[in-house]
């Protein structure tokens, strides 16, 4: 007998293959999988938001109204946000948004100077001399690339190259740091790209190991169906191209 769990696993394998089939060509099964995903995700989000509201506010309000009355304020402000669909009272929705933005900003701003500026500056101040040559080399790299990166983003005050005559020492230093900044960032972007590949490959591997390999029959059937869908799409496109050419001639 087919269990619901097995049925779900087969559907999962089908949808995964159909979504990946887009890499080869857009086709009807890809579109089906895409629409199922969007619909399910939208439905899940609405259900989750209502559940969150119920768990956090409604249950507390019903169980201990005296102690939880303050939950009413965000609930009312949240409901007021729907007034943005009213032409007459749309402005009332701004109160909820304003409070949300204000609290978010206030919470972030109280620690940003320390967490994101001061501590990062402290970490960039490293000893440039020492007994461990590898550490010293790393510290110099950190120092030069930090300075270079900052120099690259100097848009207002920077030394200009004289049109005639010898270039100044300030300009040379600026130019060297600028180049270090450019190459440092290029190496950084290269590392980022390599990490991106690792993540994407990791996603595919895990999808294969968790959802496809245990249900190989479903995977094979899904691949066959996707191949048929792609071939139908190719035929449809070539036909429509022929029709257009005929009409033009």
């Amino acid at each position, binding site marked *: 007998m087919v269990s619901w769990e097995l049925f779900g696993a087969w559907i999962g394998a089908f949808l995964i293959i159909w979504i990946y089939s887009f*890499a*080869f060509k857009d086709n009807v099964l890809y579109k089906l999988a895409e629409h199922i995903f969007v619909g399910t995700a939208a439905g*899940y*989000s609405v259900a*989750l*938001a209502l*559940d*969150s509201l119920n*768990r*956090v506010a409604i*249950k*507390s309000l019903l*169980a201990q109204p005296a102690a*939880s009355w303050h939950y009413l304020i965000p609930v009312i402000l949240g409901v007021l946000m729907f007034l943005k669909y009213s032409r007459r009272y749309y402005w009332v929705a701004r109160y909820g948004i304003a409070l949300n933005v204000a*609290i*978010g900003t206030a*919470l*972030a701003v*109280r*620690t*940003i100077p*320390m*967490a*994101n500026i001061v*501590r*990062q500056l*402290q*970490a960039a101040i490293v000893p440039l001399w020492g007994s461990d040559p590898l550490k010293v080399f790393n510290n110099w790299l950190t120092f030069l690339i930090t300075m270079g990166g900052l120099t690259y983003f100097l848009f207002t005050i920077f030394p200009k190259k004289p049109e005639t005559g010898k270039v100044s020492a300030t300009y040379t230093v600026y130019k060297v740091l600028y180049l270090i900044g450019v190459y440092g960032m290029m190496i*950084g972007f290269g*590392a*980022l790209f390599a*990490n*991106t*590949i*690792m*993540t*994407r*490959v*990791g*996603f*595919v*591997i*895990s*999808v*294969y*190991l*968790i959802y496809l*390999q245990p249900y190989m029959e479903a995977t094979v059937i899904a691949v066959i169906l996707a191949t048929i869908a792609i071939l139908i799409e190719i035929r449809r496109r070539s036909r429509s191209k022929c029709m257009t050419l005929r009409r033009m001639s």
Partner: protein
Amino acid sequence: MNMDTLALVDKVFGSKILLYILLIAALIYPFASPLGIPVSISSRTMQVYNYVKSLKPGCYVYMEIYYEVAARGELEPNVVALVKQLFDKDCKIVFVSLIGTGPIVFSLLRSTAADLFNTKKYGVDYVYLGYVSGQEAAAASLAKSIKGTVSVDNYGNRIETLPLLREVDKATDFSLAIIASSGTDTFNWYVRQWYTPYNVSLLFVALSVIAPSVEPFVGAKQAIGMLVGQRSAAEYELLVGRKGLGLASMDSQSLTHALILVFIAAGNVVYWGKRLRTKKK
């Protein structure tokens, strides 16, 4: 290399279909015939392992589960290995999700590591608070008071009825906060709302793609360390002695990366070859 050869190499290696087919083959082949490439333990993973090892038995740990089902393959093996190490030390874990997909991935985590969770009692050894909306504001609120933020857990149990949540309530009650996230912002929130005001030790579990963006926090010692993607997972699985998805995927990762290197090298040969030929002309 003449222009015809370069054009042929360009045509062959420039084919999208060929790249995808070879990638799929490189990805699947090691599962049919394992290559057995040895996995060495990096000093960074060892540092994290030693830190967790140094925690007192029975300590309290906070764990943020902030990822989608797609990111499961990179983050879940790390989380499972950490949960094993913590449960082996009888540490108690409070799981939370500031993302909507949290309840789904947590239920998948429980089923993947059923052997670990089944030996522990829900409410006493671990608790899952479920999805808490509010993002950074929610992180700040949870740091101040869990009871003041949520009244029930993910399964509708009232917080007062859960023994573990009678023992811990605020950020400073935890020996370690583990942030497993597929987004960069989450790490920012916890550095700003947990580390900076309360000095709680943070451990990051990040996707490979976002690790460079989070690295400055680790470099500035705002986190005790970071586990990155499947590679760190494989190393941690070796350290805790529980083989999982991390180790299983290493051969496949290596072969796929080697193939991509070949394609990048071929692309560069064609590019520079064509450029030099054009310059000569």
